[in-house]
């Protein structure tokens, strides 16, 4: 079981309080009608599915109900850092 630090509660809690919410930094297209089916499919279905350090979304379901960002190794499960939502918009840019 992972031990996850909630950036809003500012405490580490057992994984059972949280729910994973998928890969991070997948923004909804500004104007869905303006893009091709390929681009739409890429947003809805396609994923990078990193092997290694991976940014993902978690929600503190049974806690403060906030969504936040987690950088976690999908190889070792080690959590490298967490961030409140919107603190960064991509793996690099802060």
């Amino acid at each position: 079981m992972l031990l996850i630090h909630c950036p809003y509660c500012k405490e580490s809690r057992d994984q059972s309080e949280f729910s994973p919410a998928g890969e991070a930094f997948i923004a909804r297209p500004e104007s869905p009608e303006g893009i091709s089916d390929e681009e739409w499919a890429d947003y809805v279905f396609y994923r990078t599915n990193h092997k290694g350090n991976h940014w993902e979304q978690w929600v503190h379901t049974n806690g403060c109900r906030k969504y936040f960002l987690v950088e976690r190794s999908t190889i070792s499960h080690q959590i490298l850092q967490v961030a409140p939502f919107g603190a960064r918009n991509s793996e690099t840019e802060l």
Partner: protein
Amino acid sequence: MRLAQHPSHQVDYSKSLNFIFNNKRYKGYEGDTLASALLANDALLFSRSFKYGRKRGLMAAGVEEPNALVSLEIGGRYTPNLKATEIMLYDGLSAVSASNPNAFDMRAFIKPLHRFMPAGFYYKTFIKQKVWAKVEDRIRAFSGFSKAPTEEDVDVYDHIFHHAEVVVIGGGAAGISAALEVLNNSQKERVILVDERSQLGGELFNEFTSDEAAMKWHKDSVNRLLSFANEDSERFTLLTKSTAYAWHDQNFIEVLETITTAESLTSSEPQKARKIVHRIRAKEVILATGAHERPMIFEANDLTNIMLSQSVRRYLHEYGVISGKKVVVYGNNDSIYSTARDLHVNDIECVVVDVRSSEDPIEIVAELKDSDVKVLQGYSIVKVLGTHQVKAVEIKQTKLQGNSWQVFGDTQTLSCDLVATSGGFNPVVHLDCHNGAKTYFDEVSQSFLPQQERDNREVCGAVAGVGAWQDAINDAKNKAQFTLNALGVLSELTQEILSENYSNYFNVSQFFTPKEILNKPKVFLDLQNDVTTLDVALSIREGYRSIEHIKRYTAMGFGTDQGKTGNINGIAVAAELLGITMSEVGTTTFRPAYTGVDFGAMAGREVGDFFDPQRYTTIHDSHVASGAEFEVVGQWYRPWYYPKTGENIHQAVHRECLATRTSLGMMDASTLGKIDVQGSDAREFLSRIYTNAWMKLAPGSCRYGLMCNEKGMIIDDGVSTCINDNHFIMTTTTGGAASVYSALEMWLQTEWSDLDVHLNSVTDQYSTVAVVGPNARKLMKLLCQDVDFERENFKFMQWRQGTVCGVDARIMRISFSGELAYEINVEANYGRYIWDQVAIAGEKWNITPYGTESMHVLRAEKGYIIVGQDTDGSMTPMDVNMSWILAKDKPFSYVGRRSFSISALCAEDRLQLVGLLTKDSSTVLPEGAHIIDNKGKSIGYVTSSYFSPILEKSIAMAQIKGGLAKMGETVLVKIVQKKQGLKEIPCEISSSVFYDSEGEKVDGNE
């Protein structure tokens, strides 16, 4: 036999216990294990092996024991496949061998055929599917150890969460020392010490007869620990009879504690759990898990009374038991001399055979020789003589040439009745490897050691390759200091000066795997699964060369002992045969559990009623009182129907539906999800997540909404109420409540954080009583005076705030049946009261409570869909003929809209929801039956089907390919299950609105 009493013995000679093994009565003492007690009674045969059914005795004294499998007790306390070495004796214990060594055994009977049944035998035989199908069950009958239980467990199991700064795993010399070092040098840090045995001390007991200092250190240290446990229980927790069986991510450690050893207790309502799983979240972990001794290998090494050297010592020291009078102690490391010395001290005749020809003999060897103990160095056992039990050993001279062992010279025979062997020690690295750590092969100790550096973890003592108890104690203090530093606790290290009487057991020579022995039959590596050196050779010869392939091909290490003693010899043999080093061969992966964990313990109390929460409305008890049958929806228990005495479901539903359509019905609608939506952007938010328009919905009104996901598929629906321009209350389906709520939060927080909207779940805040039927208005007028119920003043799809029977209520005029209906929402605590008041006041109209089944019929008569029944996650609003609910002119591209334009979602032959009327109106279609085309292929299926009491005919809804364009066409529903009577039922595709298509009923009477 039992030796004279000695302070090192951990049995209480004043408490004698009776027990039964294989139907024979025996006596033992408190503190005995089943194994030690049987040895004391000279009962040496324990069970039979897996493949060849060979008779087997004890090899070890702990959890590494491969042979001594038994089942314990009977009935609700019957437990299969326990190791006799892990069962603490209690009065009245009753056990039988997993497979009885004294009964006839087919596997042993076909001994002459064994040579034709090598590893991988079954891959090469019974290749015809038909033949395999015939023989498989007969072959299966031979497999397995104990019989399965036949009754439900009478005991219960608990889980307990712990949080500690330091967890020390292993209560031997190192573990004790480490725990003490941390406790002595810190103030508030919480420490947990875990040990699998009932007495702290581990292997240290083995030193007691030869070393006063060991006994004294043990006594003092254990007392110190116990006083910590008693005086500062918040800070120090001592878990004995507790095995750390798994180490998960972020130092989450699971420990199985055995509470009641007396399995024969007979209480139906146990006051104690049988076992407890402690789930420990630790900051720092200190591993002091020790090492398992491994045997030397030689021909016929599976005969009874061939035991591990340290196990012989352990039986000697802890239980005062020895199973032989004339012992050959054989091995490749210094520990064998300690064993010989202890035997000699106890006046047991012994000979030492050491494969190593020593240049500089150590002190203890001299001692032994002085005391006339025969010591043969540079000799090896090549074969054991005897039918089932050891009678003698054949030895030959041995020398190491380069990297390979040579065996030469004449064969000598030494008669003996017990062989104690030691091939070195395997550090117990299992836990460390559970969450990803690696091992490396250490040439000095000839063993796989845990990787050096690791965050938040230290290893000390034997598991770290430290081979003398004195060193282990100081090593542990050292590592404990590192742990303290990691916790930011500053303290001074003080080394302990212990006895001079010193011997390093990890002086081990290279694995003894000479060709002369590897090529012999019956040189066993895995005794439980009968894996021999020849099997490993065959595996390699056939190209299964990876150690994982060898394991799988030969089944080496698959037993209940998980190869704790045998695997490493298998790796050594593989290395020898492949001509590579042991570290190149590597180990197989270590996985939880370190030792077996009862399913019951894994589940804990989350079984039966606690397996999953049962959620009730505040009106539940009333439903129970009126004899309702319940339907489970998500976690909710909803009334399904309310049978009167003698009624079946059809009669009850028929009555409920007619009463509702003709007069008055009532239902508990409290389980629907309710989400309070507030903020200046509440409207905008609703119009983004629902497909229809919300900007103009006036306060005081309600509106139905359909929710899709980005794939364009329907996921939920419900009515939302406009309280004011900035405040709405949304209802969701019962099953969808949680997922919808978190989906909405996700949109708000991750995509639309600019919107000023707050969501709050108010599902539990309200009890909802629906009053349904032509007489509903009359009833409401009775119950509530401060609301004007006249139809033109309180219209359909409106709501009013009022007082119902003195309780504040939000009354919504909405309908899921097409009848005049009101939903009374009150604070949950008054739900039961309102329900009762409605029932009383409704009596004059024969008000009838109805459940989900009637609700389904009533809504189906009107063609209203149920998300999850008429849709399945792959239906668009167009598919269910609800294009009318798709707003065309919303500026924002609401969720799912973009997908509607994708080609496959606009295809004409998609499954579409339509009505279906059987030509014979009395025939009710089975739900799930398929509609076929003229080729007999499925073109859709029936989603909902009922006999409509009010229409007195069968009605159904179905998904049919291109169905919306096929109105009026006749199709065939094919019944393909014998039970339902094979037939083809002609039906007409119709509108799915079967009743009151003009919608006149919704205003009720007057």
